């Protein structure tokens, strides 16, 4: 990489990290919301 390897690879690695973070945060939110609703429905079902 003609002496610029560290810069170039850091940039590509950061890109991968940003994509992974975005994907992970989206999945995490989906899971949390889903679980919260599940818990609430169960609680409602128990009281009825």
């Amino acid at each position, binding site marked *: 990489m003609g002496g610029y390897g560290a810069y170039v690879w850091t940039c590509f690695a950061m890109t991968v990290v940003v994509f992974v973070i975005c994907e992970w945060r989206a999945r995490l939110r989906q899971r949390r919301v889903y679980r919260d609703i599940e818990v609430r*429905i169960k609680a409602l079902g128990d009281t009825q």
Partner: protein
Amino acid sequence: MWKFIHKLASPPHFYGLAASMIPWFVVPGLFLVAYGAYAGLFVAPMDYQQGDAFRIIYVHVPSAYLSMMTYMIMATSAGIGLIWRIKLAHAVAAAAAPIGAWFTFLALATGSIWGKPMWGTWWEWGDPRLTSELIMLFLYFGYMALRGAIDDTAKADKSSAVLALVGAVNVPIIHFSVEWWSSLHQGPTLVRKGGPAMDTAMLYPLLAMILGFTFLFGALLLRRVRAEVLYRERRTRWVREMILSKGT
């Protein structure tokens, strides 16, 4: 036409449709990015002025482009939500903001790393593109802060929509004024990042990267909008029935 749009924008329909659409974005996106990254890193010839450091543009330009496009998507869907009262549009705007902020951050970080070997400094105020990206990041922060400060979802949607629209009017003006501002400054002569006179062996990987990033962004957006829709519809009957029947 209206019927079709209303059906598409109905939350249960969208929730199912989005799940089946995500692979159609992920697969071509990954292929394009894999090709673009390989060709950009190893096949494209070295730039005679910038050496191998120019290869950073293969991630910098797509993320800078996405940061602008995401703001426009956010403002457009916020406007649609405000005018036609389509709830899904507000969910799209809410989901787009954090992704846009991440890509803006990525554009700033890679631009700054590119600047180190090129200008000899991590940050060059004389470069209008980096400066506009910084202001872009502030715009995203303001939007997300306003959303976070309002508890009621419907009110947060509308307030932040007004802000996004006012911001969208200002984005081109900010770019123009930053260009004017930096043109006054007789700083280091900056090497042009890319340009129309680019070699095709350099250009095709870049186009593949831009397209690939857009596809992957689409997948990210769909996933986030799904979570957002699920949250907003948490008290509805269809969500209840779906969860009782163990759907995802």
